[in-house]
């Protein structure tokens, strides 16, 4: 179990490097479909970036090997570090889901209604506020968005996919 936790921790540490490596390799492969004139600068940049990513991965591995023998911080029982990591991951996933929820609300319902719905759901479910204060805050936010962007700045507010579909 601790071996799995260790593997997870190491993967998380190099996650960004690995993700970037995959994107860069994909783009490098795609760059060969371009003409010589359009492709030589992006290809050169990609090749250098990939080289640097390899160096960074090497540094990550070296750092990992050095830390293999390191013990958990004093005062923590052997399983506590794994537990803290798991709690951290859940919190991160929840935060990312809320951002995704905001995106979805705005795309489906538009700027005014979407921001109001998201604010209400967030305050009620995440912050634990009561129905009334959540509702008042959500309505105030929607009014501000409409007033500032729509009325004062004369910007065209995105109506939302559902409204467009309904029309």
């Amino acid at each position, binding site marked *: 179990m601790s071996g799995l936790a260790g593997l997870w921790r190491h993967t998380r540490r190099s996650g960004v490097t690995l993700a970037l490596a995959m994107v860069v390799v994909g*783009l490098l492969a795609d760059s060969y479909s371009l003409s010589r004139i359009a492709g030589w600068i992006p290809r050169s940049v990609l090749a250098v970036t990939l080289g640097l990513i390899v160096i960074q991965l090497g540094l990550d591995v070296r750092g990992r090997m050095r830390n293999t023998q390191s013990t958990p911080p004093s005062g923590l029982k052997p399983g506590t570090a794994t537990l803290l990591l798991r709690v951290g991951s859940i919190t991160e996933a929840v935060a990312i889901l809320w951002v995704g929820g905001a995106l979805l609300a*705005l795309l489906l319902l538009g700027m005014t209604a979407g921001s109001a719905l998201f604010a209400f759901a967030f*305050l009620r479910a995440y*912050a634990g506020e009561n129905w009334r204060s959540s509702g008042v*805050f959500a309505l105030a936010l929607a009014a501000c968005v409409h007033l500032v962007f729509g009325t004062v700045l004369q910007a065209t507010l995105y109506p939302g996919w559902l409204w467009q579909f309904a029309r």
Partner: protein
Amino acid sequence: MDPVMIDAALEGLRLVFSWPYILYPLAATLIAMLFSAAPGLNSSTLMALLIPLTYAWEPLPVMLVFGALVGGATFMGSATAILFNIPGKASNAVTLLDGYPMTRQGQAKTAIGCAAAASALGSTLGIGVLIAMLPVMRDAVLVLGPPEYLMLAIWGLTTLAAVAGDSLIKGLIAAGFGLQLAFIGYDPRTAEPRFTFGTEYLQDGISLVPVLLGLFALAEIIDLMVSGRETLSGQRRMQDLSGSVLEGIRAVFRNFGLFIRSSLIGIVIGAIPGIGGSVAGFVAYGHASQTARDRSRFGHGDIRGLLAPEAASDAKDGGALVPTLALGIPGGTGTAMLLGALTLHGLSPGRELLNENLTLVFVLIWSLFLSNWITSLLGLSLVNPMARLGTIRTSRLIPVILALAMIGAIQYRGLAADAVCAAVFGLLGYLMKRHHWPRVPLVIAMSLALLLETNLHLTLRLQELGRINFWSRPVVLLLLVLILFNLFLPLLLRKVRAIRAMRRGLRS
């Protein structure tokens, strides 16, 4: 100074402060401040909206309004960057590097005070230089060609060394990735689509605004939720916030040498057409961090890291008017809009404008000056309400910031897909922050990519045709020295410090 110029300057000043003309710059500044406080919207958008409205106006009010719009928007973008980590535009991305950590340490008042003072004084210096340069600016701007632009783009990229933090390799990878993002879309020479994977959205390229909003604002929201911080500053009451406006203003005078150098960087870069304000801020930040004795606080709330880009960003407005007025070449989007408004009213930039309509030129300059000061003074008077935002519960702030960031992303180009793009970069930004990857190099590289690529192609072609000799151009050589200075000074200083420490150790 030429007596004709002095007369025109005084007449311009009189007109700006005369009734009812004073109302034009005042109103324009207030509207620009409001506009630029909303992420994704900036003075360029506002100018684009106002050009058709001013069609029937006389040239004088047009100059007053557009002068104020050029200068009135910079500070508010910095305020949102300092308070919420939301950069209004690319040039504010560097402000948040040290501005936002100061807010998190409860020093929002000091940060806003410093930004306002650096902004007002920097713009004053920029305008002073613009006035002094008016007689000679035509010749000065014509010296620059593609090789100089190429070197300037590389100079901007070398600031990576300063913003990359502890890991230069990570910074370089982020920059490489940023360059690559900017290559998405049509090739500037062959108009061939690159890395679009057949999607319509990617054909226009990835816009910098959703990337900025995602990398900084949305990433910060995720971080706030994960960290469980109750308020942004960590304090619940205003009385508990440390720092003061006066302390921020004093910081400008305490680092006056840095302020002057950063403003000069802003003026020079602003005067070069097509470079824009973001490079000025990045270069100034790089300069501040590389010339500082103690670099350890940079990126963690060092006031010098806030002062330098603020001074440069505002000083560049004066510089940006040099090529616009003298040659009709806009320095950035804002000055391009200004140029459009001038042309619409029959005012042709160049010799005609500078000789026959010199008073109008000074009206524009004084209006810019006035709007910069109004913005800073208003900003200072609003310090307390702005700092109070740092004591509001994050659970209340998160939905507001999140909605504003998403709306800003959509509003910029009117594309809902930009909100998805911002969310993707929000996740990337959070992961980068979590794993100590610098995010600013990605932004610097993205904003410099087009300049770099176009001028690299042009320089190589001109060299190939024998039209230029790259190595015999004095400005190129000067920029090369500056690039080497940027790259190797930190290494040299580190070595000198290590040797000194070793000597001290031996003595003791």
